């Protein structure tokens, strides 16, 4: 049997992000549940979040973010031959989101699949994309994280409705020389014994989260994963331009950041105005940091996704 020959490396060509228009402030939430702005800001670090319109779907947001990333990459739709959508909140399970998104973006007949690693989804999808390019399974890959968490939230549960939000982020991954390889080795894993710490009991229910248990796990188990991802990429944490973890809770973000030994790195705090958008949070944060000119091209950035499952994944990339 003949084997395909891939590229020596893979890199991110461009990012793109999309947020729904509807801004929901803490005061808006305080009008419907027993909470207040000061409490929300101090516990989770969120000032406002975006919530999709009633008819706005996970695919709609994925198309918006994916289209931006594709345009910014300089590639045409015909150059993409694999589309991966990381999502844990599609409206329906069948059909998948990725094939619809591909068709709407004018990408003809690519490989297309959805992938659920919850809030770690984007880092898993990024690893899949880089592996596909290196193995020769794909030339260029469109990777999207898109979530409509608002449709899986009990809006009377003040422990969750203040945290979760909607949005999408995307990246185009393409080939690179080994010397300029821009996506480092992934370090990933899971802890199925903690499946009941963030879960939806059945299809008529909403997200339930055991906040303290998740906080303890995230602030103790993840910094070794982050350091290992740096070590495997041969990048010392002191060389990182930025640390862009999943925007779960600003206090988790800051606690992990303190422990990875990268005091110079810019730490993403997109959660303040985006909320927790699960698999969308990392590419959304990155696309906004790049738009603001905060990261020079080629700068090494550490990504770290973690969430329900429990699943986690981290890798160092260089930004386009």
């Amino acid at each position, binding site marked *: 049997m003949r084997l395909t020959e891939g590229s020596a490396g893979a890199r991110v060509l461009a990012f793109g992000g999309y947020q729904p228009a509807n801004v929901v402030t803490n005061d808006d939430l305080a009008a419907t549940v027993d909470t207040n702005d000061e409490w929300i800001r*101090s*516990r989770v670090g969120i000032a406002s979040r975006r919530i999709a319109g009633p008819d706005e779907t996970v695919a709609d947001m994925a198309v918006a973010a994916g289209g931006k990333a594709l345009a910014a990459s300089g590639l045409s739709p015909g150059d993409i031959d694999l589309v991966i959508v990381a999502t844990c909140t599609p409206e329906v399970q069948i059909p998948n989101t990725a094939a619809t998104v591909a068709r709407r973006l004018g990408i003809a007949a690519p490989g297309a699949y959805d992938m659920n690693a919850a809030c770690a989804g984007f880092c898993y999808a990024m690893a899949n994309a880089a592996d596909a390019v290196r193995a020769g399974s794909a030339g260029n890959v469109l990777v999207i994280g898109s979530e409509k968490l608002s449709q899986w939230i009990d809006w009377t549960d003040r422990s969750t409705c203040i945290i979760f939000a909607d949005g999408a982020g995307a990246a185009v991954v393409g080939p690179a020389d080994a010397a300029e390889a821009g996506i480092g080795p992934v370090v990933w894993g899971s802890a199925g014994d903690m499946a009941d710490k963030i879960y939806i009991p059945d299809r008529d229910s909403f997200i339930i989260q055991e906040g*303290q248990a998740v906080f*303890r796990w995230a*602030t103790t188990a993840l910094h070794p994963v982050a350091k290992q991802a740096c070590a495997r990429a041969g990048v010392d944490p002191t060389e990182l331009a930025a640390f862009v973890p999943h925007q779960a809770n600003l*206090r988790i973000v800051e606690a992990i950041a303190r422990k990875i030994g990268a005091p110079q790195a810019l730490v993403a705090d997109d959660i303040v105005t985006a909320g927790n958008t699960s698999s969308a949070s990392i590419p959304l944060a990155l696309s906004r940091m790049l738009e603001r000119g905060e990261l020079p091209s080629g700068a090494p950035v550490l990504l770290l996704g973690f969430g329900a499952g429990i699943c986690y994944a981290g890798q160092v990339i260089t930004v386009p």
Partner: protein
Amino acid sequence: MAMTDQEILTGLGEIIDEVAGVPADQVTPDKTFVDDLDIDSLSMVEIAVAAQDKFGVEIPDDQLKDLKTVQDVIDYVRRSSVSA
């Protein structure tokens, strides 16, 4: 080796200063975490994790809610380190 209450209090003061920014000299046995020291449930988790590193005593989440004062934590650490 058993720790004295004063040793635990000193260590706890250092932890609370680091985790919550409360000066160690304000951490006295009679203080309550929530009302006197303005420490919330997530900071309590961070204190429990730091206490495990410092004292070698695990404080699970389901025990945390019963530890309302600094003295409660001192008692918990002393009892657990003796039985360990």
